């Protein structure tokens, strides 16, 4: 077992732990940071799974998309922009 396998396993464990925390958390606002942790871990494991230059583009696209999604949920939950 060499080091990329260990890193990949770590990413998987972090993602699963954060997912369990998201499901178990009661408060909606506290779920969102753990969702970001999930997206970090998944982006890392995408890059580690395939050693290819395009994998970096794909991981960046997933990261941007996931951040946009959680930002939109948080912004809607808080009730829109302040200066209105």
């Amino acid at each position: 077992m060499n080091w990329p396998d260990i890193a990949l396993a770590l990413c998987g464990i972090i993602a699963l732990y954060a997912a369990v925390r998201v499901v178990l958390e009661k408060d909606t606002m506290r779920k969102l940071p753990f969702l970001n942790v999930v997206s970090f871990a998944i982006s890392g494991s995408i890059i580690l799974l395939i050693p290819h230059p395009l994998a970096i583009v794909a991981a960046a696209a997933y990261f941007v998309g996931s951040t946009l999604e959680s930002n939109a949920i948080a912004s809607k939950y808080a009730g829109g922009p302040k200066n209105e």
Partner: protein
Amino acid sequence: MNEFLMIVFGAMVILGGIATIISRDLFDKLISLGIIVAGIMPFLADRGLLDVLTATALIAPLSTIFILMAIRRRADEP
């Protein structure tokens, strides 16, 4: 992808699906949907379909944002 990772990401997908069904709040449902998408992405990467992965990763948040349009914001509710 070895068996350990398959079990981990598969467990994420199933966990997200069950959490989406049983939670009552609409925002909680959308967040759990995000976990399903996150669990699917490594499977897409494992097949080597990087173009599909890029497109899916950009399309999935759009679907969530479209649903957010119809949800009433929290401040309006009593």
